[in-house]
């Protein structure tokens, strides 16, 4: 069976890859949107944190014998603690400064993290084996689905919507939204906004590290894996609307699929399509798909 002259297996294969990439885009842009909303900092270190998540997973396996399942829990935890320490000591110094300083600081942090991994481990990439329980695949009739890839899609959807639920439907979430919308007034109610900021930075980088662990078996562990992704992720955040949680999630998956479909129908444009889409959205809706006008 063909659709527009493309075999359905090829089409579905690219949609699946699109969904997987979309899952990574969504988790990363979700963290970026959270951090931008509350800290007003564009976290350029986000891609490097994703890389660090994959490296920590590999290091846990190599040196402590902790496998994939442990890494899924511990790598984001370790990275979140490091992020909390950095927020308290370094990042918090620049909240009163212009955006440019936050950009320079986090870009510098990204260079240090990626440069460090490159120095020690080189750029060739280290394989990370699939966990045994998720290897193999199933034949769905219209396509062959590697189980691990299906797992990545399901987990990223679950993680994104859990975070969305906490932000939009719980007391903690309403406090976070209040602190994002009007931090000074929120403090005047006796709410410890600086602690919320630290928590959100920890959560944002923890999410990025989680995506890094998920990606390790698919892409190998490579010092540059994050910088390849981060530019697209910024485009996703802009398309979704700066600071919009649902916007970041939905446009993450949407753009993954658009990118995948472009690979089927006109491969040369597949790296470009997201940015063309971004330009078009910004022309029609300058605040992004889900953004509120300022």
């Amino acid at each position: 069976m063909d659709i527009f002259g493309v075999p359905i297996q090829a089409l579905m294969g690219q949609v699946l890859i699109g969904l997987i990439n979309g899952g990574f885009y969504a988790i990363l842009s979700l963290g970026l949107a959270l951090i931008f909303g509350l800290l007003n900092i564009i976290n350029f270190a986000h891609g490097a944190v994703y890389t660090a998540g994959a490296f920590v997973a590999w290091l846990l396996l190599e040196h402590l014998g902790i496998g994939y399942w442990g890494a899924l829990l511990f790598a984001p935890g370790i990275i979140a603690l490091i992020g909390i320490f950095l927020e308290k000591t370094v990042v918090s110094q620049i909240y009163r400064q212009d955006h440019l300083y936050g950009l320079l600081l986090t870009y510098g942090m990204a260079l240090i993290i990626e440069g460090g991994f490159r120095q020690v481990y080189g750029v060739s990439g280290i394989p990370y084996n699939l966990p045994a329980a998720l290897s193999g695949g199933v034949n769905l009739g219209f396509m062959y689905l590697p189980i691990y890839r299906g797992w990545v899609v399901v987990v990223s959807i679950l993680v994104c919507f859990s975070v969305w639920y906490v932000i939009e439907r719980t007391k903690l979430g309403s406090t976070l939204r209040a602190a994002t919308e009007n931090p000074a007034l929120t403090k005047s109610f006796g709410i410890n906004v600086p602690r919320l900021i630290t928590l959100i930075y920890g959560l944002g980088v923890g999410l990025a590290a989680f995506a890094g662990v998920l990606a390790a078996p698919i892409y190998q562990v490579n010092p540059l894996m994050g910088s390849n992704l981060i530019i697209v992720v910024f485009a996703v955040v802009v398309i979704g609307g700066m600071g919009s949680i649902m916007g970041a999630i939905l446009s993450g998956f949407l753009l993954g699929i658009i990118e995948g479909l472009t690979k089927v129908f006109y491969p040369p444009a597949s790296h470009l399509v997201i940015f063309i889409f971004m330009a078009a959205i910004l022309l029609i809706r300058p605040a992004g798909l889900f953004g509120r006008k300022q």
Partner: protein
Amino acid sequence: MNNISPTKTPVLKVENLEAWYGESHILHGMSFDVREGEVVTLLGRNGAGKTTTLRSIMGIVETRTGTIEINGKSALSVPAHKISPLGIAYCPEERGIYKSLTVRENLMLPPVIAPGGMSVDEIFDLFPNIAERLNSGGGNLSGGEQQMLAIARILRTGCRLLLLDEPTEGLAPVIVQAIGRVLKMLKARGYTILLVEQNFRFASTVADRHYVVEHGQVIDEIANSDIGRESARLHEYLGI
């Protein structure tokens, strides 16, 4: 300035308060106090520094010197989020209703600081409109509803000292009357209120004392019982 304050202990004492917005020096030595159970107003023209005074007390304006004591404890050098727990709650001029929160979330946002705050049921009795709109977005309320919600949410906290910044501004007369009733009820219950008002006629119906603010200083103090006699002076200060 003649001393016409009752002799109860001040729950809010401001002395020689100076405050800055960036480079601009707004408050030039504000001094006044508010005693337990009193309703005290800050009167004055636009730009006199009334709102800045409230924002300085709450730590929203951070660059400030002098003395601010709330229930006997200094509020000057503590972080902004530790000021309300001293027993004070603030309702800002722009109401400060969060658009990204529902009415219910707005109402429940401020943490309870002390026991004895109003229950949600009491609040709904006082402001029936809020009970009807709990699931609306905060941004969908009318100006009057926003004002009522902004007052309602700080009554839950158990704070007994309230700072209210122009609660009647821009509202229809019937809503101004409703807010006046709420303030009288709060006064009867022993709340202490520092009120910033442009609407002097409204202020005179609820207040015990008035401080006149000009150029970031208190320039006069008038007891509410004297306003008949002092109306010429007030006209001069306020241009009313």
